[in-house]
């Protein structure tokens, strides 16, 4: 048995030499969900990274601690990666919309919130899509708004008409709104105590006084 300096490991009882482990089965680590956070109220949701999880509810539990334990947060969205429709990336000065293959002709933006227009759109098989833009390579995708469309590909075309004037847009993501698991506004208090956890902030460790005191106590050469 391996004798460790770590009492926890000694409790595990680790064998000295083990045979090679079998390769992990496919999806042993699950699929990924992409995570978006909201830094403060009314700020747009911004991409933070993926978590591996079997389902959205578990992805949410994971995302909450992996992406919002250290910094202020007021909301969190998780989406299966496979549910996101993506444009190619273009250069930092260009627009990804220009690179979109020509698609369905879009006939102009209807007043989005009138019940009549909405129910007509829905009965025509359309749904809400959330649109995200990347402004610069290496940065993060940011939520810009919603469109109504019948598919992810069509949502990109509609987004081009609505948001296409914006520059630069290096990359666009379209996500069917129903595919997003969103934190509840009533549950914002799950982040309420984050700022109080000072023990994990650099600012809590001020040691200069102690160093100065130590130096002063040393015999002068």
């Amino acid at each position, binding site marked *: 048995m*391996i004798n*460790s*300096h*770590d009492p*926890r*490991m000694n409790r*595990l009882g*680790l064998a000295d030499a*083990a045979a*090679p*482990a079998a*390769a*992990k*089965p*496919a*999806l*042993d*680590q*699950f*699929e*990924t969900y*992409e995570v978006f956070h909201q830094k403060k109220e009314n700020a747009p949701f911004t*991409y*933070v*990274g*993926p978590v591996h999880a*079997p*389902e959205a509810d*578990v992805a949410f539990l994971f995302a909450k601690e*992996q992406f919002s334990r*250290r910094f202020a947060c007021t909301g969190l969205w998780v989406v*299966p*990666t*496979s549910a996101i429709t*993506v444009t*190619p*990336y273009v*250069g*930092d000065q260009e627009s990804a919309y220009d690179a979109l293959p020509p698609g369905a002709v879009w006939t102009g933006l209807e007043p989005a919130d009138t019940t009549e227009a909405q129910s007509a759109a829905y009965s025509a098989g359309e749904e809400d899509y959330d649109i995200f833009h990347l402004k610069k*390579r*290496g*940065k*993060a995708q940011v939520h810009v708004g919603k469109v109504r469309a019948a598919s992810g590909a069509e949502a990109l075309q509609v987004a081009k008409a609505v948001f296409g004037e914006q520059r630069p847009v290096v*990359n666009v*993501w379209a996500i069917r709104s129903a595919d997003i698991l969103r934190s509840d506004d009533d549950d914002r208090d799950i982040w309420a105590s984050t700022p109080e*956890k000072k*023990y*994990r902030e*650099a*600012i*809590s*460790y*001020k*040691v200069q006084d*102690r*160093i100065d*005191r*130590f*130096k002063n106590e*040393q015999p002068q050469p």
Partner: protein
Amino acid sequence: MYGSASTHDLPTNAPTGLENEDPTLLATFEARIAKGEKIEPTDWMPALYRKQLTRMIEQHAHSEIIGSLPEGTWITRAPGFRRKMAQMAKVQDEVGHAQLLYSAAETLGKTREEMLTDLINGKSKYSNVFNYPTPTWADSNVISWLIDAGAIVNQLANAKGSYGPYCRALDRICAEEAFHLKYGHDAVVHLATGTKIQREMMQAALNRWWPAIMTFFGPSDKMSVHTEILMRWKVKMASNDECRNQFLDMYVPKIWEIGLTVPDEKLAKNEATGQWEFTEPDWEDFKRVINGDGPCNAERIAVRRAAEENGAWVRRALNASKTERKYVQPLA
């Protein structure tokens, strides 16, 4: 936590494969990097770029998850509430960093399953310093302060690299590491300026760790075709010697000012050249340890493997009851 000490560069005579790449695509790719733009996952990239970055980010991820173990050794014994909670948070952060980095590597095409399989079978490397033990609380503090300090030097350089997902992960990691560095320094200062027991424990730990610290950034780079290409592609951002010198510049004075000595009589800064001079680390020993013959190699791998095996039933259960979805690589 990471140092170039883990990166097994390709043999200098290995083919670069560049002659097989489409010259137009290669020119566009290189022009983008030269302009200072980042490369994103769905962009065209040369095979060598993908291979080297995958290797580097994967090793970095392994270094985080294995790197959580030497400090984790003291997680149940940290003295007092302040240290106990911070030690937990720090070890947790290292696991979090591994998660971020595995995801970044995954965007290049290697799945997390494959990376973890390679780790527990000893096929992938990780930062060599974590093959050394932490027999006292002070050893853990040396890692928290000085190994993290070294890692930050490295990571800040790499954060200016060319691959978007890696840069995003590193930005987040560096923001979190600010706490690690201050916490580690605070803990070391408390011991170094404390009671006799504390001071002796601290000096002994520093003496034990100094040789490993000096190898953290790896041996001097041999300039080769590969090195030249990887620097042009902003995969390798600073030479090992530059990083080591920067680290010594920043931290040796801080070690000295709290009354600790560095166990190397030759260590001194040559003010004329701006370079630190020191006893050359034992690179033969370094190679021996990196190849498996260090004091903790077997334990580190055994622990990771036990964690994977003990958790297998949990993952099986979750996998069996979930909605079927097609696997796609994480997007960014």
